[in-house]
Every structure is written in C-alpha cells, then in structure tokens.
C-alpha cells in the first residue's frame, strides 16, 4: 500500500508549521500511527505533510501554576516513563502505559491522538476525568479550551483548518487523590473496546470530587456526570459503587462493531466503571 503523492516539510518552529499548514491541502504529521495507515488505505490524501517532529518546543513536559503542560508531540512512552507525570498526574501515566503496544507508544503522540479523536483511543477517559484543557494555535491566534469543547464527534474536533494542538494541560494531583484507568483491550490492536478512568478523594470516610471519564462506549470520550453525582458523598460501599456505575451508559449512543455489540459495550462500561472506582478508592488516602 502506497500513499498518494504529497510534498513534505519538517519545520523547526510552530510559526513555520502554521504558515505551512495554511495551505488547504496540508495536514499535520505527528507520530503517524493513524495518519500514515489512513493515507496508505487512501482514506486520507493530503497534498502536503507538515512533519511536526522537529519542533523542539512541542516535545516538553513542564510544571507550571499547579498544572502539567504536556507538549503535543510528547509520545505515549515519554508520558508513561516521565517521573514528573508519574508523580504529579499518575492517572495520565497509567493510561499512556495501556495504549496500543510498544511500537505505537514509542511513536504515537498525545496531541496526535487528541486531534484524531478515535472513539477507541485511551487518553480521552483520563483527560475527561482530569478535566484537561487543550491549547490550540492558529496563524496569529491562540486559544485554550476544555477537551469537552474540542471533541465534537467520532474523528471530528472543533479544530479549525490550519489550527494545531500545541499543549495539553492537566492538573497536578494531590498525593491523596485516588485514580485508576481500567479497560477492556482489543487483543490485536490494543485499542479500548471500553475504557474508564476514575479520580476521587476520600475524607472522613466519604468520597468527594469524583470524576469519571469514559472512552470506547460512544462516538467520543465523555465525562459520566450522573455516575459522579450518585457517588459523591457516599461511603463508597460495593452497593453504592454498583448503583452509580449502573447509569454510566444512560443517554449514550453506544458503538457497535465486529469487536463488540452496543449491548456488550454498555455492559462492559458498567463493569469497568465499578473496577476503576474500586481501584481509585483503594489508592485514595
């Protein structure tokens, strides 16, 4: 399989990249784990590839004002092994370690994954539970928006033509916060058939600040607000967790494909919500 011809540039600054991306035929290349196969299958045929991998400024992870700012071109394996992410935002590091396989994690990037918005990607579960924000640059513009506003539908985002994700912003977590990502893995590709991330705090025997992010179930990842509401303020007994998890798929149009029917995905979403909340609870102190 050979992609359609394209011209190619590998700029060294974001400004140069945005200039090159102003061409309506242009598409940004990050890790290539999704775009190159799509081009080989001729599902995508950009006339120009703007390779972002030589832009050093997009490959940094730094802590700033109670948040971690992760460059869009940081790979999954860099997130998985970063001491900063592991200690300050362990949910994101844990989620990155579950993505695809060794080869995919060595090349695939967080910005690329978010921009592609595959319904079965792992990151959305964690990023929704973390209430992540995404910094987006365009030619002469810059905006920061919650992930919730960026994702629109399966493979569709609110990115304007020529815009580029430059940074993903997640909170620095208190050591007492409990988090966990649990997924049903598609055995060949490693994609999430369903994946659930939970984040919560525990004080005086009660659960608070519950956030639950879900991926794989619907057209995009989402925050399961109803589950959060039901669980907030409870003691986190098994019965209470099950009762809250039971509503995770309510109002969601569940995906169906050759790997799992919609009914099975709804069932899995409940099972993995229970598991994620239990594991997060066990880690909270």
């Amino acid at each position, binding site marked *: 399989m050979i992609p359609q*011809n*394209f*011209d190619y540039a590998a700029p060294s600054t974001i400004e*140069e990249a945005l200039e090159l991306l102003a061409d309506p035929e242009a598409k940004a290349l990050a890790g290539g784990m999704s775009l*190159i196969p799509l081009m080989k299958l001729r599902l995508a045929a950009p006339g120009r590839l703007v*390779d972002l991998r030589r832009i050093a400024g997009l490959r940094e992870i730094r802590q700033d004002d109670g948040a971690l700012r992760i460059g869009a071109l940081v790979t999954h394996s860099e997130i998985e092994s970063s001491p900063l992410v592991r200690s300050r935002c362990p949910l994101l590091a844990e989620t990155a370690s579950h993505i*695809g396989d060794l*080869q995919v994690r*060595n090349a695939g990037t967080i910005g690329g994954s978010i921009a592609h918005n595959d319904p079965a990607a792992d990151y959305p579960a964690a990023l929704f539970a973390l209430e992540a924000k995404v910094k987006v640059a365009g030619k002469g513009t810059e905006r920061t928006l919650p992930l919730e506003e960026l994702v629109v539908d399966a493979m569709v985002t609110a990115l304007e033509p020529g815009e580029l994700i430059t940074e993903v912003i997640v909170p620095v977590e208190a050591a007492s916060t409990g988090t966990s990502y649990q997924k049903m893995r598609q055995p060949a590709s490693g994609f999430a058939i369903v994946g659930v991330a939970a984040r919560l705090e525990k004080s005086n025997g009660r659960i608070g600040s519950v956030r639950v992010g879900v991926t794989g179930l619907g057209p995009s990842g989402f925050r399961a607000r109803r589950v959060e509401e039901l669980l907030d303020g409870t003691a986190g007994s098994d019965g209470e967790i099950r009762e809250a998890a039971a509503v995770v798929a309510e109002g969601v149009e569940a995906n169906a494909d050759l790997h799992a029917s919609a009914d099975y995905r709804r069932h899995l979403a409940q099972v993995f919500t229970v598991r994620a909340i239990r594991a997060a609870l066990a880690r909270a102190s």
Partner: protein
Amino acid sequence: MRSPKESQVRKLPESGVSRRGFLQGVSLGGGALGAAVLERPAEAAQSGVVGPGEVSITLWVNGKEHELRVEPRVTLLDALRDRLGLTGAKRVCDRGTCGACTVLVEGKAVYACTTLAIDAQGKNIQTIEGMTRGSELHPVMKAFVNNDAQQCGFCTPGFVVAAKAFIDEHPNPTEEDVMNGLGGNLCRCGTYIGIRKAVVEAAKAMGGRNA
C-alpha cells in the same frame, strides 16, 4: 559508533518559486502535471518544502551511511527493503499492527511501515541485519533457536528486534511481562509460548544488562 550525519534536505536554499505559483503554472498542462511535478528539483520549493518528486536523503543504518533518492511518501520499510536490500524487516500488515517490520530508531522499537524514510534521516536506525556480529548470533537469536520460538519464521525478525528493545528496558522480565511487552508483534503460527520462553532466557543470558 559515529553519530549520524544530519541530512542536507532541510537546509535547501530558498528559491522564491512558491509551490502554489508552480502548481498554477502547470495547471493548464493537464497530463503534463505528473511528469513536471516528478521532475521538479527539490530546490524549487518554498521554505523547506520538498517533493512530491524524489528527494535526496541520507539514512544511517546499522552504523553505515546510505545516500538515496526517495519520494516523501516512501516508508522506511520500503527504503530498507527495496532500495538498500535489507529485507530482514518484513512487510505483512503494512499498517502498523503486526510488528513484522519492527526496527530500532534511536534504540526504540518502531514500525518501519508507518515511519516515513524522509523522517528517519539523521537518526540511528538498527535492523535485524545489524544484530549479528559476523557469524555470531545475538543472544536473543540464540534463545529463539533454543526454544523453537518460530515456525514459518516470517514474523521472527520483527519479534527478535522488538525483544531486544524490550530487554534493554526490562532486563529481568517474567513471561507475563514478555506477553504484555511484545503485544505489538503477532505470530500467525501461534508460537507465543516458545517466544516468551526465549525472551526470558535471552534476558538471563544477557545478564540483566543492556546489550
């Protein structure tokens, strides 16, 4: 080992001929477009834009420098196999799923089928061919032989390269670690049991250190 040489491709002088201007210039030519584009020298591009015709690139493979001309759409796998005669990395799924094309770029296992050759310039590329020292097999290769870790053998080079990268980062793995760590490689003959044993044995033979 010498460090890889930076390629010249991105240091082209600006010529002032914009891509759009060029395309407009030939747009009335109809059928001539393809030929004209292919023959357009890389130098005639806007601020570092090259292709879609062939571009000179330098690849640093197994410690040797190779100069070649490829279109930007040529993958590292096709450049290795079809241009450099290094056919150890195999083309199977050709879409970043099966792992048969695994090579090391800067010591990390990647799918050569989803890496553009032009993007691999200036990086240290290692293939299965670079793992032997003369006729002496690498410890991972020896362990694959000892444990019958292959049947038809088509997936084996990818597995061996991925296993080396895995052991470099996990010097004392269990069989379960190997199963998870090599999840990016598939074997249709189903020789996973032998492969897991081989990788654990190889890690022991390498003495828990990188090799």
